[in-house]
């Protein structure tokens, strides 16, 4: 058995104890007994946990105590100031199996006393005396020996005053009996308790001492290394107790303390002890994590000779060990990365001189060491799942290896130089020898580094392995950006190795990510690298494309941009045979920002010039000469017919201008990431084959497959910014707008194209620079323009609406020449008609507009049949205008046109006032550009409406002609005449006095003729009314004739039955008065007299024979006052039976009351025929419509009102026959009323007036005075 275990065993440290085997030593024969006791004691002691209550409020813990037993030696007792905790004797045990009082007294007691005193001198109060009893000894001494208890009692009384628990009896330890087991258990419990007590006490004291020591750290002479050893002691103890957490805390505290000192050093607060850590680094062998405790380094620290890296390495190795105990391997990796970064920083801070590359070696080895250590304690699945924790170390190691490779000339194409080799040797020297732990392993970090630095090939192999591992891990955990960054670094490596092909793949991938996320600076940088690759690879088109992008990149300096621009121009300048034309995307070269059409409608006829002005923003840094700039256009068949409507984008604010929105290059990928590849859109229109009307219209996306694909895969979409733009397809439609030799300056340039005829959609834009062609594959929004051709068109329209017949009227001829050029001598041939002659005028001028070009006179020649108008020479697409005076002859009579349709088939809305027939006139014109005659319609309106009426007064007959002016102008009417056509024996005597009369607009003039006749009357009378009219205040010569022809049918009949009855009314004032007074009743006497004998017609009609034998007819009279002057009192209507004989008279008395004073017209008296129900319906004499209308209107009025016959109707205008009347009207069999024809009843008192005096002034005013 060793006395001390120092250093502690690798994993399980044993608590040291001091075993006092004095008694056993004394009795040499019993040594075997103790050996057997010791084994079971050491085994059983840690079996049961103890609750460990701790100071400073720390949570109690259950711990297992283990002990190491060492034979007591005086020199093993800790001396004053000893800080070692590991070798501290926590409990002193005195073993004795003495049962003999004499022996006790003579030897054992003395020995115990000595032992006690030496303990006391060393201040140790933790002891216990164990008395072992065996049956053998008992038996042997049974007879003459004192009871064994007496020995124990003696010991207790001698040594354990008041501490009875310090003496324990163990009985029969070697027997397997329940008694001995019980005694064992109590012994163990006792030992544990005492041990823990001592442990707690000593540990507390140790911690206090440690703190005191730490507080002295500001004092000079304080050494971190010393303190380190002290606190580590504590950590060891905790580790022994398996309190790894607490152990780790000790190391973390040390770590923090050291870090703080380094930081303070950085801040200028230098501690002396730090000097040893500032020594130049001589060894960079990396971390060593395979040993639990790196004694080599520990010794170095203890001696104060450790370098910073040594200290850090040792500290981390301990932390790592504890963390792995704690099953937190991922914290190890995290801490490792922090440590490595930190060490590099600290060395820099402390200004420690390090060989260049040495730290890289150290970091590389350390990274791999940590990774190996972690791999050693985790299974592969666990490792794979926790890539995120290890990947940082992998990437760091890769990084370091790369910089080492660069340092040692292993990356260059040529291989290392001698200088590089020297450096390599120096670096390898600092690694020292390989540690014994890893000598056997094939893949140790040491071997890897050594191998990698030994040759170019080995380096490449190791570097690639690491890079790929790091990239794959990054990918696996979804850190794609980091993976791409590693890839980019790899690409740089390949570029150095002269392998641009592999490099490009990585660069492209990285670029895609930067582009899609809009990081312009990395984009530019990566693109520059790609350009280099592509140049080396000889991929001309790609290189040019990239160059174009770079030339337009604002992140680069002007020199760089010029360089790339020159690259393109140099290529472009090569002769044609060597290489095929390179087609590049326009977007990188120039941007189409604006398209402006002149004129703005984007639609002109083929004669005019349509210009399209393109604004191109050139992105190149220098001005570029372009051989040809072309816009390919697509001919639109469908639209060819629709003349001239602008089809620009609907959202344009400026007519004729289309703004092309561009994603600003620096504005980020907001637009590009969302948009995907640009849509290729084409418009479709579906027109009905029959009438060309639009059935449906829509937009077709031609590259759906591309767009959809982009949405399916998550890869960022291609944008114009991308290195390899979508392959540019040149659509060769054959139609191009071209401009030769343009120089594009940086910035905005405007280029003007002139458009050929047709309807075209702009599709693509090309710019050719020598061998390079830039193509803008789609112009979107799509822009269309139209250059159309137009047929000549002649229109005739009135100069002023409406055209009036009978007067000379001006009409306007408008000729749109369209594509036809009117030559000199071309003439319009108008076929003459009788009804509408063209009035020749001497001075007639034509205006040529487009806009106004000029005026020239017009020559009009009229022959019998044709009027020829010679036109002045007019260029195409101009308007020729001239005025011509025409006259429409007013047709005689009132023959109405068959229908209102005009000859051109169009229903023309007549002005409302012209409710009478209008006169459509058709002109037939022969035009020089067509073999067909052009038919044009004009509608004339007759200004007058004429009616005739036959009137009778008594026996006299009159013909009245009413001329109503329907037009909006006034006329003077003169020489009004009425003539009878057939030279009948009629005399028409004019009663018109005025020779000229003004006929205002919308007014009427009545003309009257008395008809005097001899015996024989014609059955039908045809009359012609004629008058001359002219606009007012004009010369007599301008008067135009107006004729109105009419026919009076059944003339005789009318004449003979005329005036059957005369009605005479008289107002009789009240008896006492001379005059009527308002408000007083007067009498109205109506006297109806039959004037004629009954005619044959009447006889056959409705008559019934009276009792006298005379034929009677029934009449109905009615007094009605329409002007509210009279109140009819009592009966206002009544029935009269009239004998059908001449001079038969009937008088009716009616009471009326005047309501106002003054000359009042008589109330109206109407007489109507009363037809009994039996009577056949009489055929009414109906000479013309006017009469008919009048009589009917009366009837209507009667029907309108349904008042009571008998009532006084002071204000009622019409007296109704009664309610029964209506029914009578409805049924055929009912009696009904029928008015007389005009003239059959002559009212003598028509329009007669009577004087009515005001009522007497007998108004009484009552005044009450009080």
């Amino acid at each position: 058995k060793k006395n001390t275990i120092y250093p502690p065993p690798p994993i399980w440290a044993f608590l040291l104890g001091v075993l006092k085997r004095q008694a056993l030593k004394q009795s040499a024969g019993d040594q075997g007994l103790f050996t057997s006791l010791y084994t079971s004691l050491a085994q059983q002691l840690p079996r049961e946990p103890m609750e460990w209550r701790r100071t400073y409020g720390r949570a109690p813990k259950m711990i297992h105590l283990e002990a190491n037993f060492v034979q007591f030696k005086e020199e093993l007792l800790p001396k004053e100031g000893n800080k070692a905790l590991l070798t501290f004797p926590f409990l002193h045990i005195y073993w004795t199996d003495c049962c003999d009082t004499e022996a006790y007294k003579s030897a054992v007691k003395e020995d115990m006393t000595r032992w006690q005193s030496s303990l006391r001198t060393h201040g140790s109060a933790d002891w216990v005396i164990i008395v072992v009893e065996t049956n053998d000894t008992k038996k042997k001494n049974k007879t003459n020996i004192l009871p064994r208890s007496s020995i124990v009692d003696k010991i207790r009384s001698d040594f354990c005053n008041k501490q009875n628990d310090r003496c324990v009896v163990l009985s029969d330890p070697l027997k397997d009996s329940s008694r001995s087991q019980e005694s064992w258990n109590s012994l163990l419990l006792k030992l544990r308790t005492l041990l823990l007590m001592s442990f707690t006490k000593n540990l507390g004291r140790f911690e206090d001492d440690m703190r005191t020591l730490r507080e002295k750290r500001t004092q000079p002479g304080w050494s971190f290394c010393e303190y380190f050893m002290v606190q580590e002691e504590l950590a060891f103890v905790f580790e022994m107790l398996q309190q790894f957490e607490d152990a780790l805390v000790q190391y973390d505290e040390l770590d923090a303390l050291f870090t703080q000192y380094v930081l303070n050093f950085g801040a200028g607060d230098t501690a002396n002890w730090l000097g040893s850590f500032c020594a130049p680094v001589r060894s960079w062998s990396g971390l060593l994590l395979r040993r639990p405790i790196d004694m080599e380094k520990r010794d170095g620290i203890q001696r104060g000779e450790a370098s910073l890296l040594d200290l850090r390495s040792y500290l981390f190795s301990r932390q790592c060990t504890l963390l792995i105990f704690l099953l937190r391997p991922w914290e190890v990796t995290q801490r490792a990365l922090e440590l490595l970064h930190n060490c590099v920083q600290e060395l820099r801070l402390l200004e420690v001189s390090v060989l260049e590359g040495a730290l890289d070696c150290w970091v590389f080895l350390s990274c791999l060491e940590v990774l190996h250590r972690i791999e050693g304690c985790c299974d592969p699945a666990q490792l794979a799942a926790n890539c995120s924790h290890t990947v940082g170390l992998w990437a760091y190691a890769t990084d370091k290896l790369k910089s080492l490779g660069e340092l040692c000339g292993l990356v260059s194409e040529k291989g290392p130089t001698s200088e590089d080799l020297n450096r390599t040797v120096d670096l390898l020297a600092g690694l020292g020898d390989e540690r014994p732990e890893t000598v056997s392993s094939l893949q140790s970090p040491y071997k890897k580094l050594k191998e990698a630095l030994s040759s170019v090939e080995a380096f490449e192999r190791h570097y690639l392995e690491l890079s790929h591992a790091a990239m794959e891990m990054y990918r696996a955990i979804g850190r794609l950006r980091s993976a791409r960054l590693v890839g980019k670094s790899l690409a740089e490596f390949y570029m150095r190795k002269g392998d641009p092909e592999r490099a490009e793949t990585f660069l492209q991938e990285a670029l895609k990510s930067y582009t899609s996320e809009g990081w312009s600076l990395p984009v530019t940088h990566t693109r520059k690298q790609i350009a280099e690759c592509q140049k080396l690879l000889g991929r001309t088109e790609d290189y040019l494309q990239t160059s174009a992008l770079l030339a337009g990149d604002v992140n680069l300096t002007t020199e760089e941009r010029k360089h790339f621009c020159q690259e393109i121009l140099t290529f472009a300048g090569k002769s044609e045979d060597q290489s095929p034309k390179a087609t590049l995307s326009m977007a990188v070269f120039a941007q189409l920002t604006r398209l402006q059409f002149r004129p703005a409608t984007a639609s002109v006829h083929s004669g005019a010039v349509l210009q399209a002005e393109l604004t191109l923003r050139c992105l190149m840094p220098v001005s570029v000469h372009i051989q040809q700039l072309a816009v390919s256009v697509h001919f639109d068949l469908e639209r060819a017919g629709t003349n001239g409507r602008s089809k620009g984008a609907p959202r344009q604010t400026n007519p004729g201008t289309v703004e092309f929105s561009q994603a600003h290059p620096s504005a980020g990928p907001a637009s590009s990431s969302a948009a995907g590849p640009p849509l290729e859109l084409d418009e479709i229109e579906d027109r009905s084959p029959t009438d060309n009307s639009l059935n449906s219209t829509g937009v077709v996306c031609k590259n759906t497959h591309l767009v959809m694909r982009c949405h399916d895969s998550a890869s960022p979409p291609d944008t114009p910014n991308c290195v390899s733009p979508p392959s540019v397809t040149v659509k060769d439609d054959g139609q191009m707008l071209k401009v030769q030799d343009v120089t594009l300056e940086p910035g905005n340039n405007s280029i003007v194209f002139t458009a050929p005829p047709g309807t075209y959609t702009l599709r693509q834009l090309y710019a050719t620079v020598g061998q390079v062609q830039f193509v803008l594959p789609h112009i979107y929004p799509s822009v269309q323009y139209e250059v159309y051709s137009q047929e000549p068109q002649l229109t005739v329209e009135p100069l002023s609406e409406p055209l009036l017949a009978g007067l000379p009227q001006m009409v306007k001829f408008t000729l749109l020449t369209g594509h036809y050029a009117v030559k000199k001598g071309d003439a319009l041939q108008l076929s003459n008609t009788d009804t509408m002659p063209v009035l020749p005028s001497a001075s007639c001028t034509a205006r040529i507009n487009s806009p106004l070009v000029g005026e020239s006179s017009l020559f009009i020649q009229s022959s019998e049949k044709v009027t020829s108008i010679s036109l002045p020479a007019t260029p195409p697409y101009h308007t020729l205008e001239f005025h011509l005076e025409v006259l429409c002859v007013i047709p005689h009579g009132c023959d109405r046109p068959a229908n209102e349709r005009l000859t051109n088939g169009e229903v023309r809305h007549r002005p409302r006032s012209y409710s009478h027939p209008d006169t459509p006139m058709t002109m037939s014109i022969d035009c020089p550009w067509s073999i067909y005659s052009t038919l044009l319609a004009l509608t004339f309106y007759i200004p007058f409406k004429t009616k005739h009426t036959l009137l009778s007064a008594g026996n006299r007959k009159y013909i009245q002609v009413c001329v109503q002016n329907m037009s909006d102008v006034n006329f003077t009417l003169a020489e009004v005449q009425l003539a009878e056509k057939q030279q009948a024996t009629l005399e028409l005597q004019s009663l018109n006095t005025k020779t000229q009369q003004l006929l205002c607009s919308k007014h009427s003039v009545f003309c009257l003729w008395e008809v005097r006749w001899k015996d024989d009357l014609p059955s039908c009378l045809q009359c012609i009314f004629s008058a001359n009219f002219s606009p007012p205040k004009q010369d007599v010569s301008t008067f135009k004739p107006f004729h109105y022809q009419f026919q009076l049918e059944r003339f005789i009949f009318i004449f003979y039955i005329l005036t059957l009855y005369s009605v005479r009314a008289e107002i009789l004032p009240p008896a006492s008065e001379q005059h009527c007074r308002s408000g007083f009743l007067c009498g109205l006497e109506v006297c109806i007299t039959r004037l004629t004998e009954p005619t044959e017609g009447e006889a056959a009609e409705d008559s019934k024979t009276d009792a006298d034998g005379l034929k009677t007819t029934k009449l109905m009279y009615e007094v009605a006052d329409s002007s509210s002057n009279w109140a009819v009192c009592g009966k206002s209507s009544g029935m009269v039976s009239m004998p059908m004989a001449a001079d038969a008279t009937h008088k009716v008395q009616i009471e009326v009351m005047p309501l106002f004073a003054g000359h009042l017209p008589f109330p109206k008296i109407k007489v109507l025929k009363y037809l009994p129900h039996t009577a056949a319906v009489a055929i009414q004499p109906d000479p013309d419509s006017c009469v008919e209308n009048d009589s009917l209107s009366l009837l209507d009025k009667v029907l309108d009102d349904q008042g009571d016959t008998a009532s006084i109707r002071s204000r009622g205008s019409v007296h109704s026959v009664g309610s029964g009347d209506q029914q009578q009207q409805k049924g055929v069999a009912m009696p009904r009323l029928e008015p007389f024809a005009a003239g059959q009843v002559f009212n003598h008192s028509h329009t007669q007036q009577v004087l009515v005096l005001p009522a007497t002034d007998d108004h009484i005013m009552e005044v009450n005075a009080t």
Partner: protein
Amino acid sequence: MAVCIAVIAKENYPLYIRSVPTQNELKFHYTVHTSLDVVEEKISAVGKSLGDQRELYLGLLYPTEDYKVYGYVTNSKVKFVIVVDSSNTSLRDNEIRSMFRKLHNSFTDVMCNPFHSPGNTIQSKAFDGIVSGMMVQTASTV
């Protein structure tokens, strides 16, 4: 304090990025861009666990030998990244937090500007001033 300050849009394109003029700007662009990996990782991890009650400050995204990269994400998923020199040890977590908070406030002001269209790069002078303030202090402490 900071050597590089970046504001990154929800869609991960930079709204604002400024670094100390003395150092290689490109390097910071790469660093900040790469840090988005960790930002996304942290956002998704936080999103799962805490729902809407999440902490805007993401803490140290990742350390490199020379720099420490800290992240912060607003509720509208706009990311702030501050890169600090590793040698600058005077900065504590709290100070970084307060820098982010200051940055966030200023960013909010920028967003409130009716003339600023969200999604465009930040051109605000006030914001620039705040950022400069955070970077100027670097010069005095380092």
